[in-house]
């Protein structure tokens, strides 16, 4: 499968008056055509900042993309001029955000908001755009879309707003959709509906998806590959099946252990990961997971483990070989 996007060594920092926040510390990943990559991690692990960095949506200042490259269709997103990146945003890469209550403009009608990318990138007339907006809204499952064109976001429920958001992101049939925790703010039944909708759209539009979430359950349902992020690093990367069957990084194990399962026959106590995520204001030395890691040993404090291959496409950044029960040799 050809790659749609290849990100290499992305580093993003935020400079406040007194501190430097090391948000993303050298992240590399790729997305293939018509593939869904899940990015998992807890709040503040840098998953959103990484994706915002790709489209250069982080506020500069205080943010700064320090280094790295993001090759999208042969061109580096991080080195494009502001005008060039605008041509990509909304046209070739669509984005859906976490909270549909705040990500739609409260004073602009749904029609105008969904039509905007069409007017900008496709040069459509208002009438053409309207036809397309109705099509899109029908496609994402908004009932009676013709009647709702003049409505405002506050007249829609949360789930419906998220459908509007995705209609907007897909308006120009982008080849990549970045979904930044799109189900976090929805309740569970609506979440399931939304995931199903995105799967259907993925097949209809033949697009790749980067799905950011902290919900491993959602990822299992939609992604082919998963990258687990911790403290601005990707700590483990594998196909979904491999990751769930054979998690290598202690953090991934912790995450999976803290996930309630409906198919468990006995009731098992959920295990939480002890401790707190590291202070992102300190420059990373050694493995960031050390303070919370049950397997940590001396070497972990001295040197941050690189992503090393475990087996066929499965990589993990850990000095400890969990299967053998000894340091990786």
């Amino acid at each position, binding site marked *: 499968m050809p790659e749609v996007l290849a990100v290499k060594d992305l580093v993003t920092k935020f400079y406040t008056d007194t501190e430097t926040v090391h948000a993303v510390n050298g992240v590399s990943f790729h997305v293939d055509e018509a593939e869904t990559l899940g990015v998992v991690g807890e709040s503040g692990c840098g998953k959103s900042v990484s994706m*915002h960095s790709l*489209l250069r*949506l982080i506020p500069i200042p205080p943010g700064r993309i320090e280094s790295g490259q993001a090759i999208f269709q042969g061109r580096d997103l991080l080195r494009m001029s*502001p005008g060039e990146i*605008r*041509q*990509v*945003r*909304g*046209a070739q890469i*669509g*984005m859906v*955000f*976490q*909270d549909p209550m*705040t*990500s*739609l*403009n*409260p*004073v*602009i009608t749904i029609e105008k908001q969904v039509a*905007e*990318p069409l007017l*900008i*990138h496709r040069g459509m007339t208002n009438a053409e755009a309207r036809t397309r907006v109705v099509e899109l809204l029908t496609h994402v499952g908004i009932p009676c879309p013709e009647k709702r064109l003049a409505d*405002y976001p*506050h*007249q829609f429920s949360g789930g419906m707003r998220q459908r509007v*958001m995705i209609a*907007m*992101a897909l308006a120009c049939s982008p080849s990549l959709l970045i979904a930044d925790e799109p189900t976090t703010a929805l309740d569970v039944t609506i979440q399931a509906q939304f995931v199903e909708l995105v799967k259907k759209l993925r097949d209809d539009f033949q697009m790749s998806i980067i799905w950011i979430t902290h919900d491993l359950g959602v990822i299992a349902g939609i992604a082919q590959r998963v990258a687990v992020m911790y403290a601005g690093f990707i700590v483990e990367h594998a196909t979904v099946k491999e990751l769930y069957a054979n998690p290598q990084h202690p953090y991934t194990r912790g995450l999976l252990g803290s996930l309630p399962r409906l198919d468990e026959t006995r009731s098992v106590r959920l295990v939480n990961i002890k401790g707190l995520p590291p202070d992102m204001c300190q420059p990373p030395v050694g493995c960031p997971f050390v303070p919370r890691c049950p397997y940590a040993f001396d070497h972990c404090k001295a040197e941050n483990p690189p992503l090393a291959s475990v087996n066929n496409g499965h990589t993990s950044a850990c000095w400890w070989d969990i299967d053998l029960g000894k340091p990786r040799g």
Partner: protein
Amino acid sequence: MINYIIRRLMIMPITLFGMTILIFLMLWILGPSARSALYVSDIPKNEAVMKGIITKYGLDDPIYVQYWSWLVGRPDPDKPGETIGGILRGDFGYSRTFSRPVMELIQLRFPATLELTLYAFLPIILVGVWLGVQAAVRHNQWIDQIARLFSIVGYSFPVFVLGILLMMIFYAQLRWFPVERISDWVKMADYTKYTSLVTVDAILNGRLDIWWDAIRHMVLPIITLSYTSWAAFLRITRSSMLETLRQEYVTTARAKGVAENDVINKHARPNALIPVVTYSGITVAYLLGGVVITETIFNFPGMGSAAANAAGGFDVVTVLAFTLVTGLILILANLIVDILYAMLDPRIRLG
């Protein structure tokens, strides 16, 4: 939208009624002899004569009877079949200080104040809102720093201090502006008063020299009157815009590929202006207060200086007429604010 306006208009009579009650209560507290100015042109010193007037015009009637008379007038005891008084008829009584009916005084003085206030709004909107948006967009850059400095100075500067300071600098020291009164040429034969607004009439009369003279007379009062307000507008617009620019829908707009200018003008600004519009209602009240001080300092022939003079002479009916006009303007301004508010925010309009 029309439903909203109709609903909003239906509240108006209640507000107006409340206002008249409050103003009448002030008249009531001052006693029957103060109220006699509603009907007679000079208040007699002689107690016996005063008693006669009180009985003649029913100034010791029950409060609701007097309120009604004050509102719609009462039969004129001297001219059978005619009505005297009644603010709804435009009869506010007689101004002792200016020796003419209050209504005449209003007609004479109000246009100047209106003109001054209208011009004061220009810098408020232009400098306040426009610069506020610019300052927020260029947060922490030099334009933001300068705007902030001006606004801090502006809203910590009392109007009277600023007025006197400007006068010392520009009239006394630099002599940039004329000192003589504005109204001399208004009495000219070939000059028609179309609107009573000097700057408009001057142009309609084809007299650019008069227009220029009027502008020169108004520059300093306008600055004095508006500085505090535009400083406040700048501050509010700036902080509201900064807040809006942090909202997720702004990121959404950028993620759609919207050009930065449109992100600011089409997506962020309409949202940021909602609190600004709310504040403009308060500004009108503030301006009307500022008018009294500004006009007094610059000896500007408007309602404000008239009210100040009248207050000095304990000319109650004139002061209360000014209060009434001010109140009316405020109620109207709030109506406009509410309508603008609804135009900007569909959640109000449709909610």
